[in-house]
């Protein structure tokens, strides 16, 4: 097994790897944003004292936490088109179908975990904070928005960062439905050239660079935005 | 028995022990007292090398405890140590806690170790709790088990690091009684404590420490009636007549 660095710069290899990386990053960012927005929504929905709604949220979270991510992607890609209304289906088919479904699946998956992480952050805040917020006249929603949620996110930061890291790695699962992200391109290059070692090493290093950066950002956040209460 | 020669210790930039020197003779009971942060716990933890030192020498029975080639486990097996937080092993029964060192370090058979454990537990008044788990014992009972555990090593010397500070007041007496009994039997003991009554009754000498130094080394009568060092005087005044909340001068 000899390693030829020049291989990585020859032919289509660099452009394939780069496009793979770009797709990975786009998928990651899109899913993260969707996930975070949905997570906040879920947390907000839970404060509404309407039993069927709470039940719905619980089921949503339980499904996304107990079913493997790749299976969730498959349910969306293979299964959902049959239930989507016609105009939506047409629009999806015209756009980048695989990418869209992967993004939705990953986003909803990560939203379930993030909502739980934020919830445990909320539970860690003393009840007196909420009492103080209400007693200065804030509504339940406003109290959540201005007082408890910002603190909850700080406390929930370590698990949130960890989940972000997992999301980045999970983008590789999208290759199962043909999304041309980094891992897909690695396999494609290997199929074309039969040279595995160099391209595996390159992609491994790229993933490692991303994870270590995310861990570093996490450490920076933990240092500058520490939880307000020492447990 | 124990000799400190110009012992120095730093925690980073903090000078925890400053040129500390002193001797504890065989059979003596030395009580170390002083305000928080004075270095008293640090000092006794250097004796069984739970804390390293950066300068000076510590000798036990004439031998330098930091001599290269000195087996640290052998050293520790020869010193009994009783912690403020008891530190019993919660997954082992009371008897097993006491048996562990004789079996694994001294190589005693299980039968002999069990006999020894039972005898020692009876000695500290816990014959009825021999099979109990530590979580079912009160604080005072746990600390007495910890003393039995230390005695199981048959050490020539026992160190006590604030043995009653974590106890509810009503249990302090039972532990001090055991310690008093050991002192009466001639055990060499070094005790860090705030229990001045015990110090007065049982100690052969009292070391007063503040800010990393031994400021006074005297017999109890002399220490309690006429302390020489001004900080010792203040310490005694504070401890024996607690102020009501008036600002400290």
């Amino acid at each position, binding site marked *: 097994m000899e390693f030829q660095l020049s291989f990585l710069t020859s032919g289509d290899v660099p452009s394939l790897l780069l496009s793979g990386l770009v797709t990975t990053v786009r998928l990651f960012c899109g899913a993260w944003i969707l996930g975070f927005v949905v997570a906040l929504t879920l947390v907000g929905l839970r404060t509404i004292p309407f039993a069927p709604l709470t039940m719905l949220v619980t089921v949503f979270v339980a499904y996304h936490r107990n079913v493997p991510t*790749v299976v969730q992607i498959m349910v969306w890609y293979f299964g959902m088109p049959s239930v989507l209304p016609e105009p939506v289906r047409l629009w999806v088919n015209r756009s980048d179908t695989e990418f869209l479904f992967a993004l939705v699946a990953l986003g909803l998956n990560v939203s379930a975990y993030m909502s739980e992480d934020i919830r445990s952050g909320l539970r860690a805040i003393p009840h007196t904070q909420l009492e103080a917020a209400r007693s200065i006249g804030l509504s339940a929603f406003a109290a959540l928005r201005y007082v408890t949620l910002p603190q909850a996110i700080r406390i929930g930061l370590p698990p949130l960062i960890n989940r972000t890291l997992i999301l980045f*790695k999970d*983008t590789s699962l999208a290759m199962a439905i043909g999304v041309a992200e980094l891992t897909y391109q690695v396999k494609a290059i290997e199929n074309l050239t039969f040279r595995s070692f160099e391209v595996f090493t390159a*992609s491994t290093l790229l993933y490692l660079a991303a994870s270590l950066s995310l861990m570093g950002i996490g450490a920076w956040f933990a240092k500058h935005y520490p939880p307000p209460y020492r447990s | 028995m124990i000799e400190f020669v110009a012992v120095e210790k730093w925690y980073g930039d903090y000078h925890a022990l400053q040129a500390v020197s002193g001797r504890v003779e065989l059979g003596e009971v030395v009580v170390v007292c002083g305000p928080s942060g004075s270095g008293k716990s640090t000092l006794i933890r250097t004796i069984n090398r739970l804390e390293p030192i950066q300068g000076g020498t510590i000798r036990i029975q004439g031998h330098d405890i930091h001599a290269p080639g000195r087996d640290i486990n052998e050293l*520790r097996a020869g010193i009994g140590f009783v912690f403020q937080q008891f530190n019993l092993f*919660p997954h082992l029964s009371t008897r097993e806690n006491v048996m562990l060192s004789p079996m694994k370090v001294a190589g005693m058979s299980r039968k002999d170790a069990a006999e020894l454990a039972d005898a020692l537990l009876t000695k500290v008044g816990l014959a009825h709790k021999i099979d109990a788990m530590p*979580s079912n014992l009160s604080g005072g009972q746990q600390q007495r088990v910890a003393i039995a555990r230390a005695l199981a090593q048959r050490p020539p010397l026992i160190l006590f690091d604030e043995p009653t500070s974590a106890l509810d007041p009503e249990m302090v007496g039972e532990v001090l009684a055991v310690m008093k009994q050991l002192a009466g039997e001639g055990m060499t003991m070094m005790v860090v404590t705030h229990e001045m009554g015990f110090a007065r009754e049982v100690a052969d000498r009292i070391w007063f420490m503040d800010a990393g130094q031994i400021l006074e080394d005297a017999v109890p009568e002399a220490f309690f009636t006429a302390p020489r060092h001004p900080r010792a005087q203040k310490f005694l005044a504070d401890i024996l007549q607690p102020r009501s909340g008036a600002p400290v001068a």
Partner: protein
Amino acid sequence: MLDILHRYWTLLLVGSWPNGPLGGFAATLILAGAGILISFPLAIGLGMARVSPLSLFRWPATVWVYTFRGIPLIMIIFWAYFVVPAMTGFKVPPFGTALCAIVVYESAFLAEIVRAGLNGLPPGQIEAARSIGLSYGQAMRHVILPQALVNMIPSLVNQFVSTIKATSIVYIIGVEEVTFAAMQVNSVEMTRALPTFLVLAGYYFVACASLTYAAHRIEMYIARRRVQPAGQKPIVADAVEVAG
């Protein structure tokens, strides 16, 4: 959906057994279980190395853990597919390759669970153990590990759940576990994709949800039993983040 379940539940559960190798969800559980069992001794070593005062042990263990936590499982599987035959000299079946990949992947996560378990004990325990003359090895064996391992159980069960979910990707290299079986069903029942994959999700859901609940119950039991003396908090294994 119910008729898909009715028609294919054995295929999804055990694959083509007894007319072929054991597959389906049984294979999933065996792959996940064997992966964790084989990986655990390695992880104990790595976990102890991670907390070791000697950098000779600490640095390599840290690099190993950061590396295998930082790349997707599918990459590790590709590496295994490439490296294992080259190292052992003969062609390894997909199950074997997947097992090797999972063992390596799990070792990193289990090592962190071990590390949290070791760090979760009060420092007084190791001090007391050393003070009675036990060597580091004896202290680990008789005092620290017995307690740490019990405290780790809930985290280990949760990690088993994560591993079950992680195995879902190995169908890509041809391992005949439950996702592979579902893909087979889907290729036959072409218009029934949604029910097929929901049934697949159902298999995982039942297993993972029950195990997670069991882990929670175990955690409560341990916390109740281990109320510490002298005002110390009950020991519950630190919430270590597991994969997926």
